[in-house]
């Protein structure tokens, strides 16, 4: 009903000859739906994407990232660089300048103190801040004057755009959160659910895990924006019902994360009520090879640890053969359609940081067989390859997810055809990713030979992301299985190249090193076998204009510019 009224209103407006998006609040209600509902509006206490995106309508950082991956100022006047003097020559500090006359939605001025407070809030050791890694290496944050913020690092920081950049690290209002620091952080329910911000909208209502309602922020810095007077985010259901609500019934204007089968994408797009948009970030669906022996015959505490190298997968030729047997284009066609591309690297984008390897895309079953023959794995009586009396048997696990189960079935077929015996296993995602040291089914424990999931870098500069393949990051009983080097890959050459990356400040040189590190774990060694570069598929109705989907920041990064198509 509401939607219809809004439409009628829109038609009436057009008849009156009003120019679209000329004034704040003239375009009525904006309805957004998420398949998972927003739980909390404070991204420092949760980094579920749904929560971060929801809060990005209200809370803003000093700088954001646009749809091309470039830094853009938000609350700051400009992006500080070495050239404009904002970043010190030795790269140990960065100085931000706030725009003049900024107001919070309650009408009070935004000052450098708010930024100082935000940093202290997140870096408080008892607060359990989810974005702590954004403040990694920050020595101090100080207010030089009411509108100048200086962030000092403990050492040279080649990429200083972490704190206060992007939807993961926005400014909180000191006045609202002053009593919520440290252990008190979770108890400030009202502040966490209805934060005061500087963004185009302000929160008017919040029901946990269901709906957030907004109205245009009267103090937003651009008096002509946002075009919508009110907005709401309704959560829940699944990707399919979200897509349907935009593309078929037209109840909603925008749906985030509508990953549905390619055939359904096509059918829904043909209905003509809206369109799908895809943003490609760095998310890569991959197979991870276990370099250690997961055998159940080993005593608990030694399974999948560096003590016992993997009896089959330690051989690089086996890993190569397994990768060669996969037809990545077929996987994309079955699972992702427009929202996927074949990938051979763990850093598929942006172009400047990606090695852009394509050597893995062509499937080569014969080559794979030959490679296994040469490695001494020859077919036995039952067609399954064996070597020294050991069968080529692989336990291949992933999470419960329809696309992943299709991938498992296809990959099992290909591997069976080159003489590998494959056993499949699917684990509930909340157990798989839960990291519970008591469960045998977590992805960190890796009690399987091969496992499949997706991972990405949350920053354009991949230094933090590439840290995971260092020797010392391997999960083991000693660290309660909490490492992120899932493969237990250990190569001194990788560690030393990574150390070099950490010291390098020249961007072009850093890009070279990142590509080299990427190739070391993918194409060169097949420790990681990338399959598909995945995008996020979202949908917007034809009546919504101004959407520029963005994989590097919140998808709602430019919601102030969205308008009703008339």
């Amino acid at each position, binding site marked *: 009903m509401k939607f219809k009224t809004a439409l009628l209103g829109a038609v009436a407006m057009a008849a009156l000859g009003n120019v679209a998006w000329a004034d704040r609040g003239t375009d009525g209600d904006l309805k957004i739906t998420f398949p998972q509902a927003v739980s909390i509006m404070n991204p420092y206490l949760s980094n579920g994407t749904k929560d971060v995106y929801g809060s990005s309508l209200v809370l803003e950082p000093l700088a954001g990232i646009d749809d091309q991956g470039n830094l853009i100022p938000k609350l700051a006047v400009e992006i500080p660089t070495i050239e404009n003097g904002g970043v010190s020559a030795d790269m140990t500090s960065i100085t931000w300048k706030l725009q003049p006359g900024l107001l919070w939605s309650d009408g009070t001025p935004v000052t450098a103190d708010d930024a100082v407070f935000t940093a202290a809030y997140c870096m408080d050791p008892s607060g359990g801040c989810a974005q702590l890694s954004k403040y990694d290496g920050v020595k101090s944050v100080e207010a030089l004057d009411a509108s100048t913020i200086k962030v000092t690092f403990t050492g040279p920081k080649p990429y200083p755009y972490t704190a206060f950049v992007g939807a993961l690290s926005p400014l909180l209002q000191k006045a609202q959160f002053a009593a919520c620091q440290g252990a008190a952080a979770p108890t400030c329910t009202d502040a966490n659910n209805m934060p005061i911000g500087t963004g185009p909208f302000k929160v008017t209502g919040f029901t946990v895990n269901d709906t957030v309602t907004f109205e245009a922020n009267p103090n937003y810095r651009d008096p002509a924006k946002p075009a919508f007077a009110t907005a709401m985010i309704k959560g829940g259901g699944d990707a*399919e019902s979200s897509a349907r609500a935009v593309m078929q019934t037209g109840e909603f204007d925008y749906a985030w994360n509508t990953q*549905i*089968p390619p*055939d*359904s994408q096509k*059918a829904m797009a043909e209905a003509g009520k809206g369109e799908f948009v895809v943003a490609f970030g760095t998310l890569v669906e991959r197979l991870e090879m276990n370099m250690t022996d997961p055998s*159940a015959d080993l005593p608990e505490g030694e399974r999948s640890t560096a003590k016992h190298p993997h009896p089959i997968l330690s051989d690089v030729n086996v890993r190569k053969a397994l990768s060669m047997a996969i*037809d990545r284009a*077929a996987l994309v*066609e*079955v699972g992702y359609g427009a929202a996927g591309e074949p990938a051979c690297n763990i850093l598929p984008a942006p172009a400047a940081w990606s090695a852009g390897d394509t050597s893995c895309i062509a499937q080569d079953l014969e080559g794979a067989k030959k490679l296994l023959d040469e490695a001494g794995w020859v077919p036995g009586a039952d067609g399954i390859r064996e070597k020294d009396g050991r069968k080529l048997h692989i336990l291949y696990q992933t*999470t*419960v997810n*329809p696309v992943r*189960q*299709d991938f*498992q*079935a*296809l990959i*099992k*077929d*290909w591997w069976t*055809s080159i003489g590998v015996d494959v*056993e*499949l*296993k*699917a*684990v*509930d995602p909340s*157990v*798989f990713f839960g990291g519970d040291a008591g*469960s*045998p*089914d977590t992805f960190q424990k890796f009690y399987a030979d091969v496992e499949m999931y997706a991972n990405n870098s949350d920053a354009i500069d991949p230094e933090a992301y590439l840290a995971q393949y260092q020797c010392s990051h391997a999960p083991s009983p000693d660290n309660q299985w909490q490492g992120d080097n899932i493969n237990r890959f250990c190569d001194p050459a990788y560690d030393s190249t990574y150390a070099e990356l950490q010291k390098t400040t020249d961007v072009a040189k850093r890009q070279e090193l990142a590509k080299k590190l990427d190739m070391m774990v993918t194409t060169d060694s097949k420790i990681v076998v990338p399959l598909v570069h995945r995008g996020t598929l979202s949908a917007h109705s034809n009546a919504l204009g101004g959407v520029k989907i963005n994989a590097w920041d919140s998808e709602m990064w430019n919601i102030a510019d969205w308008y009703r198509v008339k």
Partner: protein
Amino acid sequence: MTDTRAAATRPDKPDSQLRAIWQQFRTHTGAVVGLTILAILVILVLIGPFAWNPGKPSVLEALKSKNLGPSLRHPLGTDQIGRDLLTRMIQAGKVSLAVGFVAMAISILFGTTIGILAGYFRRLDGPLMRLTDVFLALPLIPLLLVLMMLFRDKVAALTGPELGVFLLIVMAIGVTSWMQTARIVRGEVLALKEREYVLAARSIGTPPRRLILRHILPNVVSPVMVAATLGIADAIITESVLSFLGLGFPPDFPTWGRLLFDGVEYMQLYPVRVIWPGLAISLTVLSVNYIGDGLRDALDPRIRGR
């Protein structure tokens, strides 16, 4: 209708009670049809793999023929990665029928035993019903997760992986679904044991064991039959929930519940994807229901005698 026919075909002197029950059962049209349909389903899934073997196409060929409707080559069509649905329905049927019947049997056995004991022996009523309350209150999903985590490897080591998973699944479904039956049976027994004929039997010194088996049990058959019918459908669907949590059979092991679950995503474009498994489950439940009807009539001496 049934009565007149029963009278017409009733032999003069049935050899045994079992025979009499069978005689009565045979006259129940619905039960006979139900039994026939169930028998056909069972035979189909047992001999199906030998009778229908379309051969395994290469992955590329299969992908070219994905999401097809029914045709001669694929009588029930194909799924999203080109697998023949008839083959999958047959494989799935074996597992689903087995899980459905065994899990239902476990749950009915548990439920009826506990219900009768609690209803008949006053001293057991309190403890058993509090136990039932505990099981009713336990959240199902964490319970299943814990059961599987604790016992999966152990049972698999004892019986081999496939049988192990099967046993664990039917046990898990069985121990989490007996409570309703138990409460219903107890309620009936509470009323039955105060009836005149039970009091009479007790007053002449009939031991409890005999009293329960001869006088109480036959009179709670009808709610138990309903519970059994509903239990089969429940078990088949619960199995798909287990798979959905990654606790069921390995992912390349189809079951009717899972085919239905996977098919829902494609329902709008390819309705056959949900029609076949939905039909198979409904047919099974429907036939069990009619068999249950017939069995109840046959077991009821009042009807049998007429």
